[in-house]
């Protein structure tokens, strides 16, 4: 909590408050916009997998590097958005994103100190597990054996977009999304 730290800081003008609010809401806004963009009609093959992949990467990144940026309630809303946009069972991605958040927060003290490669590997494992669970959940809720291929592709896609997304978000994390710089 920066406001609890002792020191001299600028007066709380309305403009500054707006600035702080904008910086606080950047992770949420960024995730939602990325989700909607991942769905944009550009006609990529297997574009359906892009959206959960983006959600996984974004939630994992913020949960590890700034858990207060995406609180569970916001992740709940993002998961609901993901479920409602797609045609899958409602509540499944809500659960998966919350679980990813839970796992990432649990191990963040170890992860945040590691280099990029290890965090990436941890993300890959988490994404693979989440994709597997999404396959299992959809299969169970549809009561039908669904092919595993799309879920695996989703995990691979999530793993391959993470480096780019993480670079962007790390930069944002240090500049425009940092409430301390307001």
């Amino acid at each position: 909590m920066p406001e609890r730290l002792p020191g001299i800081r600028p007066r709380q003008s309305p403009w500054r408050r707006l600035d702080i609010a904008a910086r606080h809401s950047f992770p949420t806004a960024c995730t939602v916009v990325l989700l909607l963009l991942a769905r944009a009609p550009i006609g990529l093959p297997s574009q359906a997998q892009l959206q959960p992949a983006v959600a996984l990467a974004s939630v994992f990144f913020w949960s590890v590097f700034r858990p207060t940026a995406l609180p569970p309630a916001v992740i709940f809303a993002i998961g609901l958005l993901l479920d409602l946009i797609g045609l899958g069972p409602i509540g499944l991605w809500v659960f998966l994103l919350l679980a990813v958040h839970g796992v990432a927060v649990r191990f963040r003290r170890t992860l945040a100190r590691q280099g990029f490669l290890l965090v990436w590997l941890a993300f890959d494992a988490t994404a693979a597990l989440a994709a597997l669970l999404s396959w299992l959940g959809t299969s169970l809720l549809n009561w039908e054996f669904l092919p595993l291929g799309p879920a695996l592709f989703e995990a691979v896609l999530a793993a391959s977009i993470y480096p780019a997304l993480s670079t962007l978000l790390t930069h944002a994390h240090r500049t425009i999304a940092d409430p301390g710089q307001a």
Partner: protein
Amino acid sequence: MIRLSIPVRQALARLTLPVLITASFGMMLLGKADALLAERARASLGDVLAPIYGAIATPLMPVRNAFADATDLFTLRAENARLRDENATLRRWQAVAMALDAENATLKANLHWIPAPPASFVTARVVDDAGGVYARAVLLAIGNNGLSGSPVSKGQVALDQQGLVGRVIEVGQRSARVMLITDINSRVPVTMEATRARALLIGTNNGRPRLMYWPEGSPPVEGERIVTSAEANAFPAGLPVGTVHYTAGHIPEVQPFARLDRLEVVRIFDYGLHGLIPPDAVVRPTDRRK
């Protein structure tokens, strides 16, 4: 913001996650038990998203075209050869079709045939691929043309210029969702054109739905045309669906005529059929396959 003491805040923070996870399980059950609620929520979200995607579709057209062109480049040669072959075949069939058309016209004139009334349709733009990893659907933007009520209703049939696309499963104020025939929950009663035998076309989430339940002794023939059948009163008879292809594992699949991966505009036909979905009742997705 309410200032809470740090231990209380920490306790609350620890509690939120389990509570929300429990809530998500509750939602899974609720979404399964009350399909209407889920459908309403999806339809209203679709109403919000349809204008947004509609607006960004035009600026995104160059990107979309670039991707399409890039994929086309790889298949250009093979595609050309295939088209030349197809053209030659079609020329021959054109002659046959014209002769049959003339013959049909004379026969109809002699028989006092009552033609079926043309079905009314509306054309809608596809604004978004609204499926998911395990679903195939598209979102349509529908204005209401100044008419009262939505021009589209549940259970209506969607076609593109070449063949059957799917069925309307959700209708909102400004948007509608069409479940494609490739969706895993899609079941379409079809007729095989050569043998006139009935079968069921079952979506698999892949590009080609599978043919099942044909009568004993009349298996689908490779390359045969598949059209819809009026059985179960869900589709009118004779809408073109696709052609039969056997996989390496000897499973008959249907290559749809409709370009389901690149839908831009679809026509929604009102045939006045409510065989499977009564106008206002909601059928659980799992019941629809029967």
